[in-house]
């Protein structure tokens, strides 16, 4: 690990330590901090994952490498970092839909997706997504999966972090990679939401 990386780990740890001390002293609550995180959480990360997805849609050889070894393929695009060491990308097809959960905590491929949304960390999502994924996707995410499609739910841990390669939306022939990347949503890479439609 480089010196810069060690330094970053120290600062990241100091942030955690500061937060825990401030909360213990009653200076703040986690909720208060989360509210400010929420304002910006969509602006961290998912655009990187979107870039990877768009490239995979454009370039079948890249897609093959991505499905074979997501970490290495992302490194080609200079995307990576802590918590992205072992990423596995799951390809959605007409037959099989994939969705990701972390059953114990909030393991998440943040180099490509940014910080996990709050609901990803909540116990309801973590447990119900395993018990009744079809219902959770339909009811909670308004994202019904056809009955003719199997749903597989994958448990991200700190050793393997899963994320999802959604299907390329129709009506996008001849689009550039940048245009395609605009259609990729964070939720589509967790497997709990659609990509945007071509307009």
């Amino acid at each position, binding site marked *: 690990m480089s*010196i*810069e990386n060690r*330094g*970053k*780990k*120290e*600062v*990241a*740890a*100091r*942030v*955690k*330590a*500061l*937060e825990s*001390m*401030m909360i213990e*002293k009653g*200076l*703040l609550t986690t*909720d208060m*901090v*989360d*509210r*400010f*995180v*929420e*304002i*910006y*959480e969509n602006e*961290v990360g998912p655009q990187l994952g979107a870039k990877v997805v768009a490239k995979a849609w454009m370039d079948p050889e890249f897609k093959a490498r991505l499905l074979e070894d997501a970490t290495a393929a992302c490194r080609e695009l200079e995307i990576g970092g802590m918590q992205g060491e*072992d990423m596995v990308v799951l390809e959605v097809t007409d*037959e099989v839909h994939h969705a990701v*959960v972390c*059953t*114990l*905590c909030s*393991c998440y491929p*943040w180099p490509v997706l*940014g*910080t996990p949304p*709050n*609901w990803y960390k*909540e116990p309801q999502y973590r447990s119900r*997504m*395993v*018990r009744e994924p*079809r219902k959770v996707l339909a*009811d*909670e995410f308004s994202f019904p999966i056809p009955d*003719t499609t*199997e*749903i597989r*739910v*994958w*448990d991200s*841990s*700190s050793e*393997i972090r899963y994320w999802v390669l959604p299907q390329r939306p129709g009506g996008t022939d001849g689009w550039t990679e940048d245009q395609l990347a605009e259609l990729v949503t964070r*939720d589509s890479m967790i497997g709990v939401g659609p990509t945007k439609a071509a307009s």
Partner: protein
Amino acid sequence: MTAGFGSPSTTLEQRDEVESLISDLGFHPEELVFDEPWELRAFALAVAAHTSGRYAWPEFQQALASSIKAWEDSVEDLADPSWSYFEHWVNALQQVLEHAGQVDSGTLHSRTQVVLDAPANRNHHEPHYEPVAVDPALTNRTGARA
């Protein structure tokens, strides 16, 4: 995100408030870029502590500027790879809290070590190679899904 999960608690006023704080630091809100989760966390901590009255924003501004200045004076070249805007942000937060007597550096240091020594997600440290749940497709069965 929609119904059920999540806590829709961010208001437009809150966003305006944050943006005016950012503007006070001399940059446009849209220039605010986070590369890593801890950066966003640190950002939110400082803003939350300020809005709940733990310190005045100019105090934080000054501490931030002096941490940045100290770094600039310590490197030969401003393109030095050790640059991290949010590292100075964390230094500044630490400094104002110490100054207000709310955090002491000894405890902070030892607690930081504890975090560093704990393996990340120590409860969830092994790979899971198979799906944790499968909801089969209807067509794969003769009857309805169980």
